[in-house]
């Protein structure tokens, strides 16, 4: 973590209504939170301490809730990087089912399937049926748009959505927006939201109170991580300009199969691990794509993301955990809590 980033974090912590937690306290809480990577949003450290200790007891009363983000299940993939992606997805669901506080829903940030085949979507549905969370929200990845422009995906998961599958919903005062940045991709470009969707987004956010916590979720990262590998969205700047006025914005993405995080003002960006296979860190391999790791390491580089919303702070805490809890090291492929 660079000094500049550390200063930023310290600054943010001091900005937080004098809650009495300084950098040392922050680090203490990080260690205490365990093997998962803890990233706290504008609510700061007290948020994560609260959820780990007493979260869940009065959650329903207070309006607090949690949900889980999973991503990149790639059902149908069967190459050496992971010959059985259905099994690792099942492990992820088992892990979610075993969480101390029950998530109220799951968000899948895309690449549900490998080749958009009906059988792959069927298998996915079968596994997801076994989750305690019955409500699942989806956005498509580029692998889900491979046949007939995503018709198969829309029929199954796009009810009530617009265009290529975008939509929004509210849950206990938090406004969620599912965006699609994998349709009509232009040669040489990265992810793309498109004019129609951007207009819809601007309209969707109009008139909402700035104190409404916003969660945007889309497959390809909405910030530029590594253009050479297409890890970014060409027109995300415009989308982000629409959420600038809000007090708490969380952006959840997938696509890169590793954890990356960034904080910019009141917007926190986060990408999740895949439940299928990892990918190399930017520039560390000739290209993106499935990365083979020793068999006993696989479950440490796959994972799920637990997101906890606490009314008191009107903010969200994001905790990543690998499928296999490794005692010694929490680092999955990708960045640590400071982001890259």
């Amino acid at each position, binding site marked *: 973590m660079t000094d500049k980033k550390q200063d930023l974090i310290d600054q943010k912590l001091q900005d937080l209504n004098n809650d009495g937690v300084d950098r040392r306290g922050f680090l203490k809480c990080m260690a205490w939170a365990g093997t998962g990577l803890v990233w706290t949003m504008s609510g700061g450290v007290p948020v994560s301490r609260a959820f780990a200790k007493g979260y869940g007891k009065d959650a329903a009363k207070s309006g607090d809730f949690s949900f889980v983000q999973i991503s990149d299940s790639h059902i149908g993939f069967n190459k050496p990087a992971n010959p059985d992606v259905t099994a690792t997805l099942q492990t992820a669901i088992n892990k979610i089912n075993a969480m101390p506080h029950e998530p109220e829903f799951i968000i899948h940030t895309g690449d549900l399937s490998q080749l958009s085949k009906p059988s792959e979507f069927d298998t996915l549905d079968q596994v997801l049926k076994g989750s305690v969370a019955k409500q699942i929200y989806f956005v498509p990845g580029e692998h889900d748009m491979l046949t007939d422009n995503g018709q198969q995906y829309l029929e199954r998961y796009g009810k009530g959505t617009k265009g290529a599958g975008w939509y929004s919903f509210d849950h206990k005062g938090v406004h969620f927006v599912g965006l699609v940045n994998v349709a009509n*991709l232009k040669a040489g470009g990265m992810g793309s939201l498109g004019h129609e969707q951007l207009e819809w987004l601007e309209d969707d956010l109009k008139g909402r109170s700035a104190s409404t916590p916003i969660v945007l979720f889309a497959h390809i990262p909405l910030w530029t991580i590594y253009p050479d590998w297409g890890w970014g969205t060409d027109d995300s700047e415009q989308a982000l300009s629409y959420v600038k006025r809000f007090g708490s914005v969380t952006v959840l993405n997938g696509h890169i199969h590793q954890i990356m995080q960034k904080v910019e003002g009141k917007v926190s960006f986060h990408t999740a691990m895949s439940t299928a296979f990892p990918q190399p860190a930017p520039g560390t391999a000739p290209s993106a794509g499935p990365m083979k790791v020793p068999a006993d390491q696989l479950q440490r580089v796959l994972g799920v993301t637990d997101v906890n919303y606490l009314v008191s702070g009107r903010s969200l805490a994001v905790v990543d955990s690998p499928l296999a809890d490794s005692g010694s090291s929490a680092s999955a492929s990708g960045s640590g809590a400071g982001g890259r």
Partner: protein
Amino acid sequence: MKRNSIWVASFTASIIIAIVLLVAGSPVVTANDQPSAVNADVNIDNFVFGPQTVTVPVGATVTWTNKDDIPHTSVSTEGVFKSKVLDTDEKFSYTFTKAGTYPYYCTIHPKMTGKVVVQ
């Protein structure tokens, strides 16, 4: 003796000429069988079309083979040709009947671009 060697020499020469004529003559061309020096192959691997630019004569066929462990497509930016999704080891061929430059890309990973120049 001299007459014999001359005879042998000219006989051998005729044989050689005959063989050369046989080999160099127009080969049997079936509908799909073109001389391979004319057609071109593009390998898709590591998110790259290789070679990125191929130059072929009018009437040549370009064949894309996906050697990557991820599916890709080969789609003309001008709507001239469009492959289905190619999984590992799958191929797509297109025969270019008109001269011109044909930029194309992978619709799944649009950073992957290539070009076919037909002269």
